[in-house]
């Protein structure tokens, strides 16, 4: 099979039929040619990371020397399949516009606008063409080069188009990402934040962030896993927008997460057009809209981690305290009994029981307090922003 890139259609070279033997689903076998010895590490990494966001699929990798790596499916859930969609007017350039006109069969420009663009109805089409200064009943193929440029220019400037809807996007989702994280990273704590859809330059996009702490796989220090439309990005990490957000825009100390803490951050950017910086498609440009969404998602996830850590800290403190009482009170009892010359040991166990009870109450209060602290983080945000403004 080959792919026709222009039409985005398969070119089938040979068709065979095989018995399914009661199995259901889709199986894809791919064989690639390449320099394995040089890229083995990246290829293995690619599979591991794919398993992280693709916990709904079985992955089997047979390498050139016959070693088999398998990643088992772990969830029945599937990501929503993307719906085909028309281009949003903000996202069309002169080249694309001309191509659309060439293939057009509509008689009027107004009709052309409503049938070739995303979320444009009659009313919007009329309003827009008025704004652009082009008559709506003109035949599209009669448009001059200058008129075409005028329209594309107006498409960018016109503010009344509806934003793109996200039905064309296929996010991983909380369940599938969460399952992949538990399976591949076995963390002590993990959380997934799915941001509402947004758009940049007429392209809808959606950001998903997974935050992982501790566990069996992560090593000390922060590790970033980047994905674009569920594809792992393995190269040029430091040029990526996610890297910039994590290392330049997030104040980790505020969330009480030290630099050496075993933390993993998974960022998934899902869009009809991912703004790669280069043709290599290895890192994503820092478009302000996308940057803001990543920042918000990471902050939300960090707030949850911070809450978890403080709760864990207070529980550990209580446990430590009880351990200390448990170690020393019996000794105190023994020594005092001997010094006082008493026959029976003092009834110190009641004291430990009382203390455990008090600690439980305290722990509850501490938990409530941490919720409050979590809530207050937002206030701190504002305070810090206010400060920054003062300095400027």
């Amino acid at each position, binding site marked *: 099979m080959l792919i026709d890139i222009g039409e985005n259609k398969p070119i089938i070279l040979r068709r065979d039929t095989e018995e399914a033997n009661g199995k259901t689903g889709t199986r894809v076998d791919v064989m690639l040619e390449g320099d394995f010895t040089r890229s083995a590490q990246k290829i293995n990494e690619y599979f591991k990371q794919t398993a992280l966001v693709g916990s709904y699929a079985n992955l089997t990798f047979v390498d050139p020397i016959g070693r088999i790596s398998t990643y088992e499916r772990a969830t029945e859930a599937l990501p929503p399949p993307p719906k085909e969609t028309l281009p949003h007017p903000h996202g069309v350039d002169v080249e694309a516009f001309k191509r659309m006109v060439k293939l057009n069969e509509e008689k009027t420009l107004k009709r052309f606008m409503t049938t070739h663009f995303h979320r444009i109805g009659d009313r919007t089409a009329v309003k827009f063409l008025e704004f652009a200064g082009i008559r709506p009943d003109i035949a599209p193929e009669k448009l001059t080069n200058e008129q075409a440029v005028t329209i594309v220019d107006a498409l960018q400037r016109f503010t009344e188009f509806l934003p793109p809807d996200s039905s064309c996007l296929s996010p991983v989702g909380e369940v599938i990402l969460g399952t992949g994280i538990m399976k591949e990273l076995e963390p002590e704590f993990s959380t997934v934040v799915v941001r509402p859809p947004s758009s940049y330059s007429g392209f809808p996009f959606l950001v998903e962030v997974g935050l992982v702490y501790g566990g069996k796989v992560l090593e000390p220090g922060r590790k970033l896993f980047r994905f674009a439309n569920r594809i792992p990005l393995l190269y040029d990490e430091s040029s990526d927008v996610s890297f910039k957000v994590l290392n330049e825009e997030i104040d980790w100390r505020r969330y009480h997460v030290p630099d050496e803490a075993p933390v993993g951050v998974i960022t998934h950017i899902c869009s009809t057009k991912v703004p790669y910086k280069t043709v290599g498609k290895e890192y994503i440009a820092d478009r302000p809209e996308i940057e803001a969404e990543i920042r918000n998602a990471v902050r939300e996830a960090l707030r949850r981690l911070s809450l978890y850590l403080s709760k864990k800290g207070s529980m550990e403190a209580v446990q430590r305290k009880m351990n200390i009482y448990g170690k020393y009170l019996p*000794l*105190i009892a023994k020594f005092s009994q001997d010094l006082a010359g008493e026959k029976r040991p003092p009834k110190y166990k009641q004291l430990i029981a009382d203390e455990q009870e008090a600690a439980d109450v305290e722990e509850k209060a501490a938990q409530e307090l941490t919720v409050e602290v979590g809530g207050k983080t937002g206030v701190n945000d504002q305070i810090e922003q206010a400060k920054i403004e003062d300095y400027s």
Partner: protein
Amino acid sequence: MIKLSKQKSKTTAEARKEKVEKVLNDLGHKVYNDLDSSRFPSVTFASRSVSNIVYDKKLQQFILGSSTVKRTAGNIKHIRPFTQLLWLAYFSKKLVEEKKTSTLRDVYYSAQAFDVEFQDQAESDELITDLEVLLGGAREEFNVYPEERSAIFGNLTIEYTVPGYEGKKLDLSAHPDGMMIGPAMTTAEFADTDAEMVLAIEKGGLFTRFIEEKVHTKYKAILINCAGQPPRATRYLLRRLHSELKLPIGILCDADPWGAHIAMVIKSGSANAAHLRDLTTPSGVWLGVWASDIQKYKLPSDPLTEIDIKRVYELKADPRYKEKLWHDELDTFLKYKRKSEQEAFSRYGLSYIVDTYLPEKLELLK
């Protein structure tokens, strides 16, 4: 020749043991009762912080002021030292009951067997001092002694009270190197003596010289080698020699600020022992070697180092050095910036210090 009453002395040792057993028992009861009524036990005692150490003119020594510290088992930062303190009391009780003694280092190691181990000996020493403050007695009363020992020599017969030696007597002039001042010496009773004074000497060299020159018969003196800053046991013994035998105490040290302070500590104690009594001999006399003696006797001398000079200024700030003699001598140090050792007298011959210097100085004891 003074014959001392054996009967009376024995009661002193017994009474001391009873007193210690009682304070330990009281502490035990207090903690026991607290635990039994589901209360966290706590102890309160005078603070040993620098700001709480004040000079008492009447007692002529440093004492602890009115601020206190409370240590409670309920506080998890306190519970470990609290347990260690109680263990020390428990351990002391065993020592006193069995009439055994232990060194500070022993104590540090013994703790390990009870799961209350100390981080280092400094920590255990610190807590032993806390116990002294809490119970109002010196560690020696709880049979805990430091490692360092000084020595005694002279016409004095003692009678041991330690187990296995009860009633045994020893003439302290029997051995020409002197006898070590340890727990057995400190608790021994004075049986008889013809001495008329006690000379506390800073260093072993001069102590040996004095024995060789027969100072103990020539001047009827009991000689004590302090071996630097004298340990508490030695200070306690000096006090007993003065109070029980009514002997004047003379102190001979190097002519430098450190030597002067050895004399001062024998007289009025140290800030470290501000919580303790019975370690001082206020009527002790600093015989020398004074700063002014360096000029007077034209002694070979060395320049004071920067640390020496700093020490002089520290001593000048000490209220006890306000007295004229001490004050003037410190000023003399600062004026000439010279120091001399006791051995410096050897330039005039080995017996000069005994035949010439000492008789002049002993006038001060009269």
